[in-house]
């Protein structure tokens, strides 16, 4: 079985793998939803169905030494960056083999080897942290970049404003990525936010911004490359707004009945998996048969990951008392 870092590195220039990783996320989230419904997963889940192109596109652009501070909605980010479906599912199931040893749960993905900082369940929680990671890179003179990844509705929290301002005045190598999936919980963005194009908020900080179609992995790669390369070259932060759509409800059992009629259907026509299939088929890299094969294989693959996680042990009572304080400094990045 490959490590998360190997999984991350394998993505490099491998378009089929991009597609496969998107399928993996899609299938993973589908099964997660089922497992939650059946009671096998407790707590809460926040799915990213429909947003796979953004996660995978971003992963293909960043180097493994770069870091990302994301949110409770991060199964997709975690998988795209390389975390295995097994480790991700084990965490969601609270198993000792999970990426956080089972004490984190669905909202707390983490893997240092691929730059996945512990994701935060607090809105705005990751933005200052990403800025701080970027500050370290700047001081250390390292060509690394930090990414803060968050939702549209998170652009209304104070930490957003403060983090962008700080990153701008210090010219930090950080990219702020808004995953604008149109909803914050059960509220459509227009109900809580007076402007539609959230990247325009960058002007308050004299910061460049980019708006991108988050359903199109190639567009995502182009936009992210521009932002990440700029940061790496020392040109400072960029605010990227990816227009996506949350195909699922907000969390747990939410049916998203508050959506206007037809909205989901409209966005489903832009399903990133569909779009990628079309692009790859056009390039001759995919055929209908191959697609069916890959999808069937993915069902099998996720099934195995789930079954493996099911058999895994739970953390022992002593695990609860570990990693509260540390004597040694973790050999941080």
């Amino acid at each position, binding site marked *: 079985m490959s490590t998360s870092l190997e999984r991350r590195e394998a993505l490099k220039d491998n378009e089929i793998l991009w597609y496969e990783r998107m399928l993996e996320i899609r299938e993973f989230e589908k099964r997660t939803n089922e497992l939650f419904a059946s009671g096998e997963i407790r707590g809460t889940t926040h799915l990213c169905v429909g947003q796979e192109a953004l996660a995978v596109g971003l992963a293909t652009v960043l180097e493994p030494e770069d870091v990302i501070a994301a949110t409770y909605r991060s199964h997709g980010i975690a998988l795209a960056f390389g975390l295995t479906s097994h480790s991700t599912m084990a965490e969601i199931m609270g198993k000792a083999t999970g990426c956080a040893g*089972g*004490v984190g*749960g669905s909202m707390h993905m983490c893997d240092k080897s691929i730059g996945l900082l512990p994701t935060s*369940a607090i809105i705005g929680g990751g933005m200052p942290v990403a800025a701080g990671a970027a500050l370290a890179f700047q001081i250390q003179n390292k060509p690394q970049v930090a990414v803060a990844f968050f939702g549209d509705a998170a652009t*209304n929290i104070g930490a957003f404003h403060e983090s962008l301002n700080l990153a701008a005045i210090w010219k930090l190598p950080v990219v702020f990525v808004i995953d604008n999936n149109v909803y914050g919980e059960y*509220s459509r963005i227009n109900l809580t936010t007076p402007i539609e194009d959230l990247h325009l908020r960058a002007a308050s900080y004299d910061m460049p911004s980019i708006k991108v179609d988050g359903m199109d992995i190639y567009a995502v790669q182009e936009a992210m490359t521009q932002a990440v390369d700029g940061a790496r070259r020392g040109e400072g932060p960029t605010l990227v707004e990816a227009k996506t759509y949350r195909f699922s409800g907000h969390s747990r059992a939410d049916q998203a009945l508050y959506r206007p009629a037809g909205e989901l259907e409209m966005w489903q026509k832009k399903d990133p998996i569909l779009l990628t299939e079309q692009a790859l088929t056009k390039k001759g890299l995919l055929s209908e048969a191959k697609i069916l094969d890959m999808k069937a294989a993915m069902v099998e693959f996720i099934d195995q990951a789930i079954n493996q996680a099911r058999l895994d042990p739970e953390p022992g009572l002593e695990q609860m*008392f570990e990693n509260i304080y540390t004597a040694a400094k973790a050999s941080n990045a």
Partner: protein
Amino acid sequence: MRFRQAIVAAMTDEMKADESVIFFGEDVAAAEGPFKTSEGLLENFGPVRVRDTPISEMAFTGAAVGAAMMGMRPVIEIMFMEFLGVALDQLVTEGAKMHYLSKGEFSVPMVVRASCGSGLGFGSQHSQTLENWVAATPGLKVVQPSDPQSAYSLLRAAIQDNNPVMFLEPRILYAERGEVDTNLKMEIGRARVLQEGSDVTVVSLGNMVSVARKAIKDSGLSAELIDLATLVPWDRAAILESVKKTGRLIVVEESPWSGGWGSEIVSFITTELFSDLKSAPMRITAPDVPVPFNGTLEARYVPTSEDVSAAITEIVTNNKVLQPWWIQKGLNR
């Protein structure tokens, strides 16, 4: 009715009784609250009085302060107590001091409702009780109901109170059922003696009340069960009276061993009643660890009725206190 329905009922009755009661928070209006604690409020009282807010805890907590000063009685919902970590300033440093700083010219009749506590698999950033954030705040009252009746009666009292009140709702109780007499008034600052007893006083709060109740029953001993209900200002007289009678004190709390609210009770009572005590007073608490996600660990995180009944038996039978379970088991860091 269920605990969450008792909240709705109290809100409804207060909003009917007093036009100046308004309510806002994230997804509390159209979606009727993430925990369904505002079912029907928007429908019954309309969008002027019942409002969804952006994800801006600082702004809307402060907006409650300002609206209260101008004659309204705002109730706000902080979805998870942890989110007050981005807004504590407005409640503690602004709201709670306005009356003092205005020589009494302004009052701030507002209620901050927040769900708290562990048990539902929400992980370490969504499961704490965090009474300590607000406990040492002169000018603020802090209340925590333990069943549908106290949820109803205390919330009405909180809304009628002319001071800022922090109203902590143990999330795990939302689905609990219990009788509610809507004519029964409860006063803020008064503890409830839920069960009289002669040999030990058991003080508890919120979710721990039912744990303590079961423990007493299991122990078969004569323990006086007190629901503290109000944490600030807590009912010194009631606990004094009880401990004077029983000569023994156990405090059961969900908060951590270090920094938890129970020390306040043990410390004060010991100072006052030292020579009346037949044995050392004691606390039964959670350990000093973040709340773990894994279900087995999370269940072990909070005091169990076994912990409590063992402690009751030991203190009543032998005048001895038991060490915390993690010390007994050698799991202490």
